């Protein structure tokens, strides 16, 4: 028996109803694609801002460094480790850290000195692009430094202004030197904004009298299609004797926020689809009951219960498929639009434009991010829910007793 023609006929019995039901499904599907893309955009931006801007996916430190950051507690063979990691496909960059005081003509403030490797750093983070005013570091300009936005304000300096820093060098002498602010960073996170003071690694080594070693190696998994856990294992084995941690352990607040957002998505998905499930259930039930005589006749002439279920399912799934196509097109279009233009939420809530969470700056403009999953998952779920919703009506239709049905009016 040809199921499809029967299903089509069933649907065309009451085209309006079919269209409306399909419409409802398409609407839900579109919304879910948009919602998932929005949330994906949010978490991805957030992750990018933290992981991609400064932290990297994974970091290596000497044991005990994180609890007690000491100039002397270094990774000695940083160069070797980085070579090995790069051979495996990772990108890695060594960082040098120190604490000190920066003073301009007008004010002074405590700072985090950061010596950056200019070749490797751009392979791991996007920080070098995140300049508000002026320019990023340059190997040739050893006295050019880049500072955080809030630090610039506190010290009252702009691009081209002079700064001195004072610290204790590795050999016990008083480290001090003059620098020119080459660039000021956009908001990255609390600590960098307030105290970030970036210089080339050569400049750091010179002023802090620290010819060797690094305090941190930031690692990026780049395009490697591996799980974070696997990556951590691989890096950890390469950096024997040191502590290797993923960004999730380093920034638990951010990790939790993203997890909560994802969990929230699933919950919302389920809720929305339950509503749709109800609608489909209702529509199919009505459709079945209206044609009870028809089904009775079909059974009387020998159509098996299984074939009846198949017809009912086919009707539902046909609608769902058409709805999916519509949702796919509309949802994709909507999401792609906002991927370029974004939604400016600062107008909605009117709350702080420069807000931050767990030390990471938040962008008030949300962009969607369309991925394979954000588009296919809602549609898969749709088909699933519809399939489940239609079980009851299908079974109901299948167990009809022909004689009773034919008498039904």
């Amino acid at each position, binding site marked *: 028996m040809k199921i499809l023609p029967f299903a089509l006929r069933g649907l065309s019995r009451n085209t309006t109803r079919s269209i409306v039901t399909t419409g409802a499904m398409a609407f839900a599907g579109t919304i879910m694609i948009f919602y998932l893309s929005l949330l994906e955009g949010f978490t991805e931006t957030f992750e990018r801002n933290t992981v991609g801007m400064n932290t990297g996916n994974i970091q290596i430190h000497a044991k005990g460094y994180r609890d007690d950051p000491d100039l002397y507690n270094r990774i000695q063979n940083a160069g070797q480790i980085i070579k090995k990691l790069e051979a495996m496909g990772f990108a890695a960059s060594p960082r040098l850290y120190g604490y000190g005081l920066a003073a301009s003509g007008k004010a002074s403030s405590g700072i985090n000195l950061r010596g950056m490797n200019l070749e490797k750093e751009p392979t791991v983070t996007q920080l070098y692009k995140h300049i508000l005013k002026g320019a990023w570091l340059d190997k040739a300009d050893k006295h050019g430094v880049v500072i955080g936005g809030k630090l610039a304000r506190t010290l009252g300096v702009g691009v081209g202004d002079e700064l001195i820093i004072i610290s204790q060098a590795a*050999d016990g002498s008083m480290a001090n030197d003059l620098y020119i602010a080459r660039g000021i960073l956009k908001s990255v996170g609390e600590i960098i904004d307030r105290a970030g003071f970036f210089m080339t690694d050569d400049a750091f080594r010179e002023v802090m009298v620290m010819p060797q070693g690094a305090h941190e190696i930031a690692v990026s998994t780049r395009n490697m299609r591996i799980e974070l856990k696997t990556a951590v294992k691989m890096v950890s084995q390469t950096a024997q004797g040191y502590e290797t941690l993923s960004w999730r352990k380093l920034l638990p607040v951010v990790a939790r926020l993203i997890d909560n957002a994802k969990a929230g998505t699933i919950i919302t998905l389920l809720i929305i689809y339950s509503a749709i499930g109800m609608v489909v259930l209702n529509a199919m039930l009505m459709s079945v009951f209206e044609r009870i005589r028809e089904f009775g006749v079909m059974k009387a002439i020998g159509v098996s219960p299984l074939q009846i279920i198949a017809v009912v399912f086919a009707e539902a799934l046909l609608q769902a498929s058409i709805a999916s196509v519509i949702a796919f097109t509309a949802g994709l279009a909507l999401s792609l639009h906002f991927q370029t233009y974004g939604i400016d939420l600062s107008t909605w809530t009117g709350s702080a434009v420069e807000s931050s969470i767990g030390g990471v700056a938040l962008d008030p403009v949300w962009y969607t991010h369309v991925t394979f999953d954000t588009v296919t998952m809602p549609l898969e779920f749709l088909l699933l829910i519809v399939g489940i919703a239609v079980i009851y009506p299908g079974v109901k239709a299948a167990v009809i007793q022909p004689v009773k049905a034919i008498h039904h009016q």
Partner: protein
Amino acid sequence: MAVLRRAFPWLCLAALLPVCNGVWADEASKERAGVILREVDDLWRGESSHAVISMMIKTRHYTRKMKMEGWSKGKDSSLVVILTPLREKGTASLKSGSSVYSYLPRTDRTVRLTAGMMMSSWMGSHFTNDDLVKESRLSDDYEADITFEGKREGVDVIEFTLTPKPDAAVVWGEIVYLVRSDHLPLRALYFDEDMKLIRTMTFSKPEIMDDRLFPTVLRVTPQDKPDEFTELVYEKIKFNIGLDDAFFSIARLKRR
């Protein structure tokens, strides 16, 4: 200059106190110790000095040798300028009242130390900037008592115990000074409130400098890192050279 300061009261003590034997009565001894300290402080006021000192610092991470020239006047003013190594030549530390300034020749800038920097080490040594400021205002900050007089390891000594007054902003629980019977300082022990020894200062190689007997070598050792120390050696010192207050100013700092 901090160290010179610490040593000096004992020096003056040596000049003033008659050699005495026997243990003094408790009350009387406290009173006498207090009186002596106050006299020492009074003596200090108006006293000035000029010295050349070499300092050696040994820590886990580095060993440094420096030569410095220092001036002091009374309790409140001191100026230290580094002579060698060349890299740090001209770096100066000025104490005026309770403020400490650093002059850094490489950048030609003077920076006033903030509250946060007071606890960091002075010139990389085991002294803190705070040590420099908190000075041995001994009679202001501590109550003195003679706790022992007699022979120790064959040497006649007098032991003073200094207990901080309740209002004194000092971290120590107790300081125990040991001097020779002729009042040459031998040792100072710094304890926390649980009577745990935190650091030891030893005075040695006494020589006649200018007009007095003076311990020329001073060594500070932290108890928790016994391999580390900071040692000051006085190569030359002159007293009462008549310095005026204007000498200890920031402008002067720069011109050194």
